[in-house]
C-alpha cells in the first residue's frame, strides 16, 4: 500500500537497532522478489483544485494505457508490472517542488507531467538542478502537454522530453490553415496575460505577416488569467473591430467563457484555438459552437485512422464511460518510454534518455513519430479539427459533439529549427 510506504519513508532509517534489523529483514525479503517489483512511474498533475479535471483525465488515460498494453500482457522487462503513482501538484509551481521531493523520496525516477508551462519550466529546472547535484539519483521528465517553445529551445534540458508539438509548431499549421482561407481579411488575437498567451500573440502576428501580409491584425488583447468575470466587453471590441476571425490560446473556464460570449453576441466568425474540447468544454459549447470552433492538435480526431486506435477508444470508453481519450499523446509517450526500457533492459533514466533520443516509433494510429535528439522535441502529424456533431464516431463528454479533422500536415512538414544548446551530462 501507498500509505505504509509513506510511513517508512518518513520514519526513514530509524536509529533504533531493533527497528533497523527488522527493516533490514524486510529489505532482504523484498530484494529476493525483485523480479516482481513493479516499474513505478510518477504522474504529476493537478488532481485536486480548479484544474483537477484535466489532470484526472490524464491519469486515467495513463493508467488505462499501462494496463491495456503491458500489465494485462504480463508486464515489461520480464514480468514487471507498471505502477502509476499519482502526485498532486495542484498546478502550482510551489507544490510541484514539494511533490518532486516526494517523488525522489519515493524512489520515482520517471515523471509524467503536462499541465501548465509554468509548472513544466519549474519542474525542468528543478530536475536539472537535482540531477546535477545527485548524479546517481537522476529523474526524467516526460512532458506530454506543456507547449511553451522555450522548454525545447533556450531552456532545453537533457532530462526533459516533450511529446506534444510546441506552440510555434502548432501555430505554424494553424496559420497555414488560416492563410488558405481567402475570406479572412482581418484577425483578432486575444489571450491570457502570461507566457503562452504572449507566445500565441507574437508568433501569430509574425507568421500571418509572412504568409498573408494582407490580413490585418485588428486587435491584440491580453486579459488576466482566470480573473475575467464577463468576456462581453472584450467581445464588444472584437465586434467593433470588424474581425473576420479570432485566435486564442485560452484554456479552461477562460476558453469556455470567451467562446460563449462570442457566440452569444451573435458574431458569426470562426474561432481558432488550442484547448476548446473535452473536460466539459465540448458539452458546454454544444450546438452553438458547431462549425465555428477549430482546434490545432497532434494526431487525428474523427475519423480515427486505424482499427487499433478505434478499439483502444472503445475499450477505454467501456472502462471509463465518463471520460474520453483526450490526449492520445500520453499513450505515445508511455509506449516510447517502455520501448526505451525494453531496448536498454533497464529503468535507469540516463539510459532511457539516450534510447529515446532520435527514436522513431509507430503509434497505434499507424503513424511514425520522431523524437529529435538535439532538443528532445517530438515530431508528428498535426491536424486542425472542427467542433461539430456530424461524422463524429467518438464524441466528447458524451454530448454527441466532437472533433472532425479538416486539415492534416504530415510529420516532415512540421519540423522547425531549434535554438537548443543542450548541456549533456557525462557518465
Amino acid at each position, binding site marked *: 500500500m501507498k500509505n505504509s510506504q509513506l510511513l517508512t519513508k*518518513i520514519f*526513514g532509517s530509524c*536509529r533504533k537497532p531493533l527497528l533497523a534489523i527488522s527493516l533490514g529483514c524486510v529489505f532482504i525479503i523484498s530484494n529476493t522478489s525483485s523480479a516482481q517489483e513493479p516499474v513505478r512511474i510518477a504522474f504529476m498533475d493537478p488532481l485536486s483544485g480548479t484544474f*483537477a479535471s484535466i489532470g484526472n483525465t490524464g491519469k486515467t488515460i495513463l493508467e488505462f494505457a499501462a494496463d491495456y498494453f503491458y500489465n494485462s500482457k504480463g508486464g515489461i522487462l520480464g514480468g514487471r508490472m507498471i505502477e502509476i503513482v499519482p502526485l498532486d501538484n495542484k498546478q*502550482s509551481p510551489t507544490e510541484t517542488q514539494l511533490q518532486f521531493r*516526494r517523488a525522489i523520496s519515493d524512489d520515482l525516477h520517471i515523471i509524467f507531467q503536462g499541465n501548465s508551462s509554468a509548472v513544466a519550466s*519549474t519542474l525542468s529546472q528543478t530536475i536539472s538542478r537535482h540531477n546535477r*547535484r545527485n548524479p546517481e539519483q537522476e529523474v526524467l521528465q516526460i512532458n506530454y502537454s506543456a507547449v511553451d517553445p522555450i522548454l525545447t529551445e533556450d531552456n532545453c534540458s537533457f532530462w526533459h522530453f516533450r511529446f506534444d508539438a510546441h506552440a510555434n509548431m502548432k501555430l505554424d499549421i494553424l496559420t497555414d490553415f488560416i492563410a488558405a482561407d481567402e475570406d479572412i481579411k482581418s484577425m483578432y488575437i486575444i489571450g491570457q496575460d*502570461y507566457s503562452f498567451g504572449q507566445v500565441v500573440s507574437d508568433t501569430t502576428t509574425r507568421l500571418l505577416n509572412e504568409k498573408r501580409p494582407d490580413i490585418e491584425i485588428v486587435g491584440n488583447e491580453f486579459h*488576466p488569467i482566470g480573473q475575467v468575470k464577463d468576456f462581453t466587453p472584450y467581445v464588444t471590441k472584437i465586434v467593433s473591430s470588424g474581425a473576420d476571425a479570432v485566435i486564442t490560446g485560452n484554456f479552461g473556464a477562460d476558453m469556455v467563457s470567451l467562446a460563449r460570449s462570442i457566440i452569444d453576441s451573435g458574431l458569426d466568425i470562426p474561432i481558432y484555438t488550442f484547448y476548446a474540447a473535452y473536460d466539459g468544454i465540448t458539452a458546454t459549447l454544444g450546438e452553438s459552437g458547431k462549425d465555428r470552433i477549430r482546434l490545432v492538435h497532434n494526431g487525428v480526431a474523427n475519423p480515427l485512422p486505424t482499427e487499433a486506435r478505434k478499439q483502444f477508444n472503445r475499450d477505454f470508453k467501456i472502462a471509463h464511460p465518463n471520460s474520453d481519450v483526450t490526449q492520445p499523446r500520453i499513450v505515445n509517450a508511455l509506449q516510447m518510454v517502455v520501448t526505451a526500457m525494453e531496448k536498454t533492459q533497464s529503468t535507469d533514466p540516463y539510459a532511457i534518455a539516450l534510447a529515446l533520443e532520435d527514436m522513431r516509433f509507430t503509434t497505434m494510429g499507424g503513424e511514425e513519430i520522431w523524437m529529435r535528439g538535439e532538443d528532445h522535441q517530438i515530431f508528428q502529424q498535426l491536424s486542425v479539427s472542427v467542433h461539430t456533431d456530424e461524422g463524429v464516431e467518438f464524441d466528447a463528454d458524451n454530448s454527441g459533439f466532437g472533433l472532425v479533422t479538416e486539415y492534416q500536415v504530415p510529420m516532415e512538414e512540421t519540423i522547425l529549427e531549434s535554438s537548443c544548446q543542450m548541456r549533456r551530462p557525462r557518465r
Partner: protein
Amino acid sequence: MALLKNSSIWIAFLVTLLGLPLVFDSILAISIMNQIAIAIVFALSYNMLLGQGGMLSFGHAVYFGLGGFLSVHALILIEFETMVFSILWIPLIGGVFGLLAGVFIGSFSTHKAGTVFAMISLGIGELIAASSLIFSSFFGGEAGISGDRTFGPTFFGFDFAQNIEIYYVAAVWAFIATVFMYLFTQTPAGRMANAVRDNPERAEFVGYSSRKVRFISFCASGLFAGIAGGLFALNYEFITEENLNAATSGRVLLMAYIGGLGYFIGPIIGAVVLTLMNSLLSNYSELWMLYLGIMFLLTVMFLPRGFAGFFMMHQLAWIRGNMKMLIKPYIITGIPAVLFAVCVIALIEMSHTEDEVFHYLALELNPASPITWIVLLGIAGGAFYAVKRSLLQLNDAWETANAIPKEEEA
C-alpha cells in the same frame, strides 16, 4: 541568559530543530521539515499582527512574497557575481525588504485596526498579486523566477547543494527569528501592542499613540515575514506569484488561527499541523481539502482559541490536580467521536470512489452494496448519539474539575 527564564525550553526547541533530521532522514521528511521551519517563522510573524497586535490582515503574504522575490534576485546576483556574499545572509535580505514594504504600507494602513485595516490589507494584497503578473520582468510572470543557491562563497566547505544542509540553515534562522519574535513581546513596544489590541483607547490615555504602536508591530511583522520569504527562496531556489497572493495569505491566517491566536506557541502548533496535513493528507485522499475545510470550521466553532487555547484551557484543572477527573470522560466521549469521524470519512470516500472494492483502514468495503451504506450510516448515527450523550457528562466533569473550591471563593 537570565531573561529567558525558561531557557531550558529554548534549548529543547533548538535541539529538537537540529535533532529532527537524525530521526527523520528521508528526503521527504527533510522537505517537510524545511517547510515547517519556514511556516513557523511566517505564522509567528502573522501572529505578531493578529494575535499580539489585533490587526486582522488578509494580505500578509505580500511581505513574505516580496522578501522571497528579492532573495531570489539576490541569489541571481550572486550567481552572476554582481554581489559576493554567503547565501547564509539571504534571509536577512528578505527581511530587510519585508521591513521596507512594511514601513511603506504600514505608514497609511495602520491608522485604524478592525475592518478598515483588514480591507486595506485585502486590497493591497490583491493589488500586488495582480501587479506581479503584469510586471513580469521582475516577478517572472506565472512561472516566477529562479536562482541557484550553490554559488557564492561556501561555508566551512558546505555549498548548500543538499536539502539537508539548507534545513540546518533554515532551522538556525527559524530559531533566531523565533527567539527575536519572543523577545519582541518582552519589550515595551511588544507589550503596548498587546495593550492596543485589548483596548486602543485606554492605551492612548497612558500616553501612547495606538497608531504608532500598531505601525511598529506591523513593520516588525513585515521583517519576519520577509525572513520567512528569504528562507523559502533558499529552500526552493525559486518563487512565484502564488507566494504573495491571497491563497498564501489565507493559509497563514488558518495556521495562526487553528494553532491558537495570542499564545506564542499557537502559530507554531498551527504551522506544524497544517504543513503536515498539507503534505501528508493529500496522499491519502483526493478530498483532503474538503476535510481541511471541515476541520477548520469545526475548530472555529468549537475551539475558538485554537489548539493552543484548548491545551491552555486545562491549565486550571492541571494546577488544581484535577486532570484525572477529566481523563475518563474524555475517553468516553473520544471513542465514539473517533468512530463517528471514521464512519463519516468512510461514507464520503465511498461515495467518491469508482473502484468496486474500497480499501479502508484494512477493511474491504463494497460501495455497490446498500448494506455497507446502511451499516456505516447506522454506526455513524449511533456514535453521534453516544457523543451527544456523553458530552453532558464531560461537561459536568469539566465543571467539577474547574470549580472554584469553597475556601478560595471566600
